[in-house]
């Protein structure tokens, strides 16, 4: 049943020769009162399903002049560690076809300065604050999760388990089902905050990792993190990134991430957040239809800081045009 007749078209197409930003004309419309956009992710109530992705939105304040944070589903912070981290030497980024590689090396201000310098802004930003965090050992993850649990204003945690485990020869926590299980269990024990575990795509069977993380007590999953990649300068015959390899993000990875989300939602019963190359509402809707309960926008923010809002506008328009009244009608609605 079609509830609304509207002159709005979806998706909006720039006219011939129209300049470079369709988003500029895609301001989010006010959702009619009976359009239900809210979702709950492992106990975190989101007014809409569009979040920012960790590492692309800083600590929120960086974008305060360019986007109304109050209208975001949630803000996910830059990954925090117990102690401040320098990060990797530059060059840290290089553009690739429809994407980019980064090897930032998780530079961050550390827990103490995060709480004293960054949380006061975030606490008043109006959107639920999800703190992404990481460590180099199980104990570090647990200690940091415990400390973050005592900080007022944090709605949930997102554990980045795509880190090398220094006690296991630097093997990435997230690439081994046993280690992923162990670390999730340790964090779960240390904190009662809603726990999202962010999975790495650099594995053979992401659904198997997802199951082990669910069994260990995670409330939700976000996937995917970046795909490890490399670019070589043929003149110098050196890798372009000082770190040699980096994480690939942007539209280039979207079909890969979407496939992994689709594979994972079939295997777990906890909510899955879709991440990977989402630039516009069409992209976001694909993840929702595949079964993601929410999405995160990352690299797309660099091009269009207001992308989360234009994506919400596009999702609302899609719902109105097709007579949907609740976002849940779209989530997992894939016809096969």
């Amino acid at each position, binding site marked *: 049943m079609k509830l609304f007749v509207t002159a709005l078209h979806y998706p909006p197409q*720039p006219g011939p*020769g129209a*300049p*470079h*930003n*369709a988003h*500029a004309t895609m301001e989010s419309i006010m959702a009619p009162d009976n359009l239900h956009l809210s979702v709950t992710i492992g106990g975190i109530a989101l007014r809409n399903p569009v979040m920012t992705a960790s*590492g*692309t*939105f*800083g600590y929120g304040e*960086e*974008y305060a*002049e*360019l986007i109304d944070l109050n209208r975001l589903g949630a803000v996910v912070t*830059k*990954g925090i560690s117990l102690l401040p981290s*320098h*990060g*990797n*030497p*530059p*060059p*840290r*980024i*290089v*553009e690739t*076809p*429809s*994407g*980019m590689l*980064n*090897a*930032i*090396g*998780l*530079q961050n201000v550390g827990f103490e300065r995060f709480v004293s310098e960054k949380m006061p802004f975030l606490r008043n930003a109006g959107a639920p604050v999800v703190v992404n965090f*990481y460590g180099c050992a199980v104990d570090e993850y647990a200690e940091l999760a415990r400390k973050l649990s005592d900080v007022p204003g944090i709605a949930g945690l997102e554990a*980045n388990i*795509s*880190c*090398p485990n220094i006690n296991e020869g*630097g093997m990435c926590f997230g690439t081994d089902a046993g280690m992923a299980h162990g670390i999730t269990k340790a964090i779960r024990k240390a904190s009662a905050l809603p726990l999202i575990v962010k999975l*790495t795509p650099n594995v053979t069977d992401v659904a198997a990792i997802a199951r082990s993380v669910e069994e260990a007590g995670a409330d939700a999953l976000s996937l995917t993190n*970046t795909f*490890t990649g490399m670019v070589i300068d043929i003149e110098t015959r050196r890798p372009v990134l*000082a*770190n*040699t*390899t*980096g*994480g690939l993000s*942007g*539209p280039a990875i979207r079909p890969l991430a979407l496939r992994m989300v689709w594979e994972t939602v079939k295997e777990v019963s906890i909510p899955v957040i879709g991440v990977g190359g989402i*630039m516009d509402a069409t992209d976001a809707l694909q993840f929702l239809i595949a079964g993601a309960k929410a999405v995160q926008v990352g*690299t797309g*923010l*660099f*091009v269009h*800081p207001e992308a989360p809002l234009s994506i919400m506008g596009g999702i609302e328009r899609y719902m109105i045009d097709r007579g949907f009244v609740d976002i849940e009608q779209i989530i997992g609605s894939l016809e096969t």
Partner: protein
Amino acid sequence: MHPEIFQSPITEKEELLPGFFYLTIESPVLAKRSVPGQFVMVQVTNAKDPLLRRPFSLCSAADGKVGILFQVKGRGTAIMSGWEPGESINIMGPLGNGFGVHQSCPAAYLVAGGIGIAPLLFLSTFLVSADSGIAVKIFMGGRSAGEVSLLSRFDLSACDVFFATDDGSKGFHGLVTDLFDDYVTTDHGFLRGNSIIAGCGPLPMLQTLSRIASREESACQLSLEAHMACGVGACLGCVTATKQENGFSYKRTCVEGPVFSGSDIDWDHMQLPVCRSAALR
């Protein structure tokens, strides 16, 4: 600073030399807010490839218009070279910190390598039009007479201009930093102390300039170029190594820069990788 995203029309496009373009863009709010040394992030296509915005130092900002001087170096600038007046472009700015020149400064020495002249042209215009009494001297380095002839587009009648070319086809035969070093070490009335040296160009050039400035006990402000993704300090992709009490730290070129004091830059950590620990992504 107040960055904003503007949809602004190109009013003029000039090809100053093969591969060097000057775009004039009508953007009154941006022009009003911008100061020399600041930059903008320009979206080159809506087609997602090339994906990222491109950073450009502003070359001018006056009368409701901004000017961008660029050299075609890659896919982004190749697309931009095809833009024509009347087209509207998506431009975010102003971003970053500009140059800081004290009123009591007797002279400003602006040292450029190639396309690095862009922010220094804005600075020279600003200093001259501010009627500050500051003597402005420009040292322009490039490959050849052709390249340094870029400057003929601009009114530099109130400045002294010196040229250095790699092939000796115009002015000093050699590096612009050698030209500048000769200038300050021979008696040309170089004003030590309060004067300011400002530079923009390749990193090795800026490092040499910084050494000269510190030897001459003069302030040195360098506009650094870096690959950027966000331009607003969120992605940490564009960092510059700076000296700290106990070592160094990586500062964001887009926010804490792009203009840095030469004495703050930790050159060792700019050139040599400090650690090879696996990136944590």
